[in-house]
């Protein structure tokens, strides 16, 4: 068979992820490309449980569980320690959820990023505090219901644009990826591996229990998020140059929203409002990508 993604499996079966977990899929993909010469830090997040209880583990690489707000900086510390030991070829990866990235971990992440420490930071984004039972985070999208934003008072704030915040640090590479597009995902991990400095990967990872969706639809929903322009896939190079990874013809956002219980309460008017927000954001991205074209053309010529 011709494999479109690396055959090697570093992550093993038996882990504690829920059925249809996008975060588990994300880890499987990332490790396929990262390989065994990798070390990871996990803050408090779903993966602190998924990996398995002491004395077992699923990831197959050295892993340091750490406090909620410290994933990035512990990775910085490991990098410094490895450099001191002369093991510079090891990938150091901070692996955090959206709470540990968008909210409590943003200070340490900003510090690591400003220093441009040589690590890969992966945020697997399931858009709420799923591990504690689905509470809203600053990554939860407008309109969503969580246990702290009930239907009669659903989330009225927009999702924080983490990609833009990271890009504002002028790091070499920021990219969004999705578990529905493994080849694109792996290409981005591969690129992140190949360059020095802080690399940020924002992974859209579906969560059936948190989104109140069917486990079998996990990949399909992640795909629809891209196809409806809710979660566009793109790269930002050097904090300034934008590149769309794909520009699919827009599908109706209702296709994405309907299978998810977290959006079931929305009126048609509210859906239209939501769609408009995503469309505007998407246009903005396309515009930036258009203006960045000379940069990528020049890069290609080199």
């Amino acid at each position, binding site marked *: 068979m011709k494999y*479109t993604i690396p055959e090697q499996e570093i992550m*093993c079966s*038996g*882990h*504690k992820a829920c*059925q249809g977990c996008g975060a588990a899929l994300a880890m499987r993909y990332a490790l396929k490309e990262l390989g065994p010469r990798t070390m990871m830090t996990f803050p408090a997040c779903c993966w602190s449980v998924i990996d*398995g209880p002491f004395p077992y583990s699923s990831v197959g690489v050295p892993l340091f569980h750490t406090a909620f707000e410290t994933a990035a900086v512990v990775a910085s510390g490991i990098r410094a320690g490895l450099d001191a030991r002369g093991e510079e070829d090891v990938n150091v990866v901070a692996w955090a959820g959206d709470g540990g990235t968008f909210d409590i971990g943003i200070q340490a992440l900003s510090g690591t990023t400003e220093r441009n420490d040589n690590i890969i930071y992966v945020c697997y984004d399931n858009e709420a505090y799923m591990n504690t039972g689905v509470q809203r985070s600053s990554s939860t999208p407008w309109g969503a219901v969580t246990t702290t934003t009930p239907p009669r008072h659903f989330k009225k704030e927009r999702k924080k644009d983490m990609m833009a915040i990271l890009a504002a640090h002028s790091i070499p590479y920021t990219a969004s990826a999705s578990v529905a597009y*493994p080849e694109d995902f792996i290409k981005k991990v591969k690129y992140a591996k190949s360059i020095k400095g802080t690399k940020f990967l924002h992974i859209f990872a579906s969560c059936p229990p948190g989104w109140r969706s069917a486990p079998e639809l996990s*990949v399909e929903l992640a795909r629809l998020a891209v196809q409806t322009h809710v979660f566009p896939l793109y790269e930002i190079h050097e904090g300034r140059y934008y590149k769309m990874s794909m520009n699919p013809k827009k599908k109706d956002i209702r296709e994405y929203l309907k299978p998810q219980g977290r959006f079931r309460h929305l009126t048609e008017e509210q859906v239209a409002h939501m769609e408009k927000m995503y469309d505007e954001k998407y246009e903005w991205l396309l515009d930036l990508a258009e203006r960045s074209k000379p940069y990528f053309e020049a890069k290609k010529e080199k």
Partner: protein
Amino acid sequence: MSDEIKWTKESDMPLMAMSLGRMTVNKTGSWRNLRPIIDKEKCIKCGICWKFCPDVSIEIDEEDYPVVVLDFCKGCGICVVECPKDAIKMVKED
């Protein structure tokens, strides 16, 4: 595959909470209510089901056919939805 680790006293343990085995001790197949059945007649050996399995529970056999690893398959059904040829069906566990 790793074996279950059994201690009886503190001196058997490591100094800190350090893992000594892999989670393959945890047979997540027991979580399953529905079992995927692959119809070899319809299968085109594209590997898409293998690719999208979050539980690393689809293996590829010598003839390139996907095989569900029932010890670990949690029965999420992603493979059923993603299969381009409708070659996988979920059936009730006995």
